């Protein structure tokens, strides 16, 4: 049952091949038996899931079931869930049980999905390896001595190991696409504002965006259908109409022009990864798409711009964790100042502290223009590069990451080496463009991701291309050894 796609499971439920309770129990059993090996879940909500599944079965029997009724999902532990601990991978929120649901959680509940639990992640979504989680690292199901990527590593590994058919995730600089690539699944970061960020714990507000993780583009489209749309509680949420993302999946791709950025195939790219990506591009060409070399001349500045903008916004967003109203408070503070200083020092991990300090520096008097303003100007140059590229092409394609999954500890304590793993993903966040990753091969038995970057609000086109690619290839059907 667990190797079926979300679409197949929906058919199975509708046809009465199995019940939602059976399906839910099956995934809960898998989590119980296998997750000690991967550490994908911070919380498993067994009782609530089974109760929800029972209700779903009633709706399915009565014929008034909502669109994804009875199908299991896991939420990244960054989305607030009423009555269920939401830790954001941090000691700071280890005891935080939100009194409300995130917008996305509500929408998914309304669609009838059954929540299996909350997935592990880099602390406050800051990381590319899942090594910064307070709850320990997630292991890559393909190679348990390797990282799953981050920050949505728990969601990615859970889908790859078939502990959940789909999962929610978030992407600030690549946190959906990079773990999707490293775990061999399909993950989509929508256009900025497409999916509600209400109740999604903020990291860098001008970059953060939630999106779906799945094994196939079709499943990602089904999930995006229920995640996307206006939420008046999020002031950056957009009124742009939501199409049915599944309706155009099967369209032919003949005649489309796919832009190939020269800068994404530079000397930093692993040659075997490049080969897998080039093979995927050839397949798209075989289906009638035209490949066109393009240039994004400011690409090399995307990582530097990001590491000013994201820390600056994070330092402001994370100032809310003060030990006064919720979250961790240090023992026996002597005064208010001591309470702030020690609560934050004791409850934030090294990477989070580093980014807050960098952000405080970039925003401090005398440095604002040199860093923050400069980074925002470079951000416009990066967006302009994309706009001029999109005057000639329909979609952009390249590698998601320069390398396949690396071993734990491989990046040592050099933060910059880790940051450079996101070199091809960050620009889409800076520009606010939708982008996705889908499996396109293996290097040393480790998955490789093909990245597509679309025009604003053109998620449907990326999903269409991905689906056509997946109809012709079987990389997305491959599973780690103990999934069978």
């Amino acid at each position: 049952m667990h190797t079926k796609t979300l679409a197949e499971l929906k058919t199975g439920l509708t046809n009465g091949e199995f019940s939602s309770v059976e399906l839910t129990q099956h995934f809960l059993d898998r989590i119980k038996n296998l997750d000690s090996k991967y550490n994908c879940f911070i919380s498993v909500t067994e009782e609530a899931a089974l109760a929800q599944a029972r209700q779903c079965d009633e709706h399915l029997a009565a014929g008034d079931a909502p669109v994804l009724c009875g199908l299991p999902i896991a939420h990244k532990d960054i989305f607030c869930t009423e009555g269920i601990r939401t830790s954001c991978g941090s000691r700071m929120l280890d005891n935080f049980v939100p009194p409300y649901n995130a917008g996305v959680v509500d929408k998914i509940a309304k669609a009838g999905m059954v929540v299996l639990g909350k997935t592990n992640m880099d602390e406050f979504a800051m990381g590319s390896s899942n090594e910064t989680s307070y709850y320990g690292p997630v292991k890559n199901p393909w190679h348990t001595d390797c990282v799953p990527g981050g920050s949505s590593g728990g969601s990615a590994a859970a889908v790859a190991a078939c502990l959940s058919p789909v999962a929610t995730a978030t992407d600030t600089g690549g946190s959906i696409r990079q773990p999707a690539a490293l775990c061999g699944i399909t993950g989509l970061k929508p256009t900025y504002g497409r999916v509600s960020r209400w109740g999604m714990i903020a990291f860098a507000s001008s970059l953060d965006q939630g999106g779906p993780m799945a094994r196939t583009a079709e499943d990602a489209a089904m999930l995006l259908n229920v995640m996307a749309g206006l939420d008046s509680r999020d002031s950056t949420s957009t009124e742009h109409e939501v199409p049915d993302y599944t309706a155009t999946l099967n369209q032919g791709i003949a005649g489309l022009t796919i832009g190939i950025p020269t800068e994404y195939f530079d000397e930093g790219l692993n040659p075997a990864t490049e080969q897998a990506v080039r093979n995927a591009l050839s397949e798209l060409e075989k289906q009638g798409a035209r490949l066109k070399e393009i240039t994004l001349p400011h690409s090399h500045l995307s990582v530097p711009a990001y590491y000013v903008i994201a820390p600056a916004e994070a330092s402001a967003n994370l100032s809310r964790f003060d030990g006064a109203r919720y979250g961790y408070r240090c023992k026996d503070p002597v005064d208010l100042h001591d309470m702030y200083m020690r609560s934050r020092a004791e409850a934030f991990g090294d990477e989070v502290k580093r980014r807050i300090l960098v952000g405080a520096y970039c925003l401090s008097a005398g440095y604002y223009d040199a860093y923050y303003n400069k980074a925002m100007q470079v951000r416009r140059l990066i967006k302009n590069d994309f706009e001029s590229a999109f005057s000639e092409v329909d979609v952009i394609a390249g590698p998601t990451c320069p390398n396949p999954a690396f071993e734990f500890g491989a990046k040592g304590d050099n933060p910059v080496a880790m940051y450079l793993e996101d070199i091809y993903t960050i620009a889409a966040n800076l520009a606010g463009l939708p982008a996705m990753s889908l499996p396109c091969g293996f290097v040393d038995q480790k998955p490789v991701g093909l990245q597509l970057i679309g025009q604003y609000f053109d998620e449907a086109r990326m999903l269409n291309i991905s689906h056509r690619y997946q109809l012709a290839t079987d990389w997305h059907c491959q599973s780690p050894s103990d999934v069978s």
Partner: protein
Amino acid sequence: MSIDRTDIEKLGELARIAVTEENIEATTRSINEVLALVDQLQSANTANVKPLANPLDATQRLRHDQISESNHRDDFQPLAPATENGLYLVPKVID
């Protein structure tokens, strides 16, 4: 631009994060690595380029200035480290 341990102490104060003696060296070193990375921005010609804050160049949607939230104090206070009579308790601020 690089920073030294005095700067880190000042930043720790600004950000309200205690930096301990045992990790100040490592923190200074790693933050300087990040700053060396971001210094690459200085190579960009940004004359007359308007800063981009919202990637869609969108302005925030406004709502009518009407009360839309009810009081949730009873839901929120159980999450606090210390409360009393509906108030949040913190260490004494004024003698």
